[in-house]
């Protein structure tokens, strides 16, 4: 019984090549001597007395496969080589002539646009300031906001619609006016919606540095770019 448990001889090199196909694929078929492998395989089988017809069958199959691989390679070699396309003259790169050109931008132009950019910067500053002081810690409001957040798209549309009505299409409205008479939680919800709307570019927000009033601009605004 012990022989049955022992690894059969043909799973050792060099014969293992006939039984492990994945290894076969990695080898060049020309490097495999089938005649040698099969002869020694039979000799070894007779010597050890481990006559196994299944193993012989597999060995035969593998040999056939190797032959096939060899003949395929041969056929490939026999294919007439494709005629090389006639070598075409490839001209060297044509470098464009270099010409110096004076440009018209002056420091005045630079400062003109700087003025606009700094206005934009101010706006971003105030947007940031709004976010920090006004929002209470999220833990206070989030549990109650779950359902509300799920409906946020609808709520945003509602608020945007009412904003547009209040400014009659386009204009500016103060945050304090918008939330007048509302409860604290409602005020916060409205504010969060405003941030979402501003983020989507539907409205613009900024805060007056002294009065801390937040202004909401609705409708066509002069472009920031």
């Amino acid at each position, binding site marked *: 019984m012990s022989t049955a448990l022992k690894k059969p001889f043909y799973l050792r090199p060099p014969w293992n090549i006939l039984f492990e196909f994945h290894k076969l694929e990695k080898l060049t078929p020309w490097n495999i001597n089938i005649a040698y492998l099969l002869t020694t395989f039979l000799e070894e089988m007779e010597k050890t007395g481990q006559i196994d017809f299944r193993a012989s069958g597999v060995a035969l199959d593998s040999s056939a496969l190797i032959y096939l691989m060899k003949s395929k390679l041969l056929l490939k070699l026999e294919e007439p080589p494709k005629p090389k396309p006639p070598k*075409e*003259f490839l*001209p*060297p790169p044509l*470098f464009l002539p*270099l*010409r*110096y*050109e004076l440009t018209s931008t002056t420091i005045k132009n630079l400062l003109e646009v700087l003025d606009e950019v700094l206005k934009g910067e101010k706006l971003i500053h105030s947007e940031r300031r709004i976010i920090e002081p006004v929002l209470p810690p999220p833990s206070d409001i989030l549990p109650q906001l779950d359902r509300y957040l799920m409906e946020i798209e609808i709520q945003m549309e509602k608020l945007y619609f009412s904003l547009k009505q209040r400014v009659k299409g386009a204009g500016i409205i103060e945050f304090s006016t918008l939330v007048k008479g509302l409860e604290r939680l409602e005020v916060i919800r409205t504010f969060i919606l405003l941030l979402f709307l501003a983020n989507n570019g539907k409205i613009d927000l900024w805060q007056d540095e002294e009065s801390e009033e937040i202004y909401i601009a609705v409708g066509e605004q002069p472009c920031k770019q």
Partner: protein
Amino acid sequence: MQTIEKQTVEKKASQEEKLKRELALIEAALYVSGRPLDLKELCSVLKTRSKNKVKKLVKILMEEYANRNTALEILELKDERYVLQLKAEFTPKVRKLVSRPLLSTGPLKTLSYIAYRQPVSQKRVVEVRGHHAYGHIKLLKERKLIAGEKRGRSTILKTTEYFADYFGLSHDLATMKRQLKNVFEDYSKKEKR
């Protein structure tokens, strides 16, 4: 009282001064514009209406430049237009100093192939130059150096008049190709040296 001789000398000197100033003005105009200028534009810089006078002056300046034998040259292009530029032989040596966006070697090779083989199908260009050529062709079209023309299902590529001007080449296709051939032959001779 001045003698006649002295007057003549002074007059001559002032005429020379004037000529120098006018030549310098043309040089200034060509330098700052960085593109070909026609006689009308040069007339307006010199505040004269005489195209003939300006033409004579430009020729003098061109000759001066040619005699100086330096890195810059003034060329006459088609339709009496003039341009100041770096001589092509210096381009590879100083390209890296240019702060304007330049075309890199790949697109320039595609351009020279199109220029040499034109009119040539886009398909052929891509076959010879590889798949990158699609990007090159787009870029070259954007720069108005080449133009495409649909013929049935294929696109035929050609260089533009702007291209010919930029290189100071003829607008006549056959002549241009001959000129280009000379340029390329010069180039390969230099490469072999």
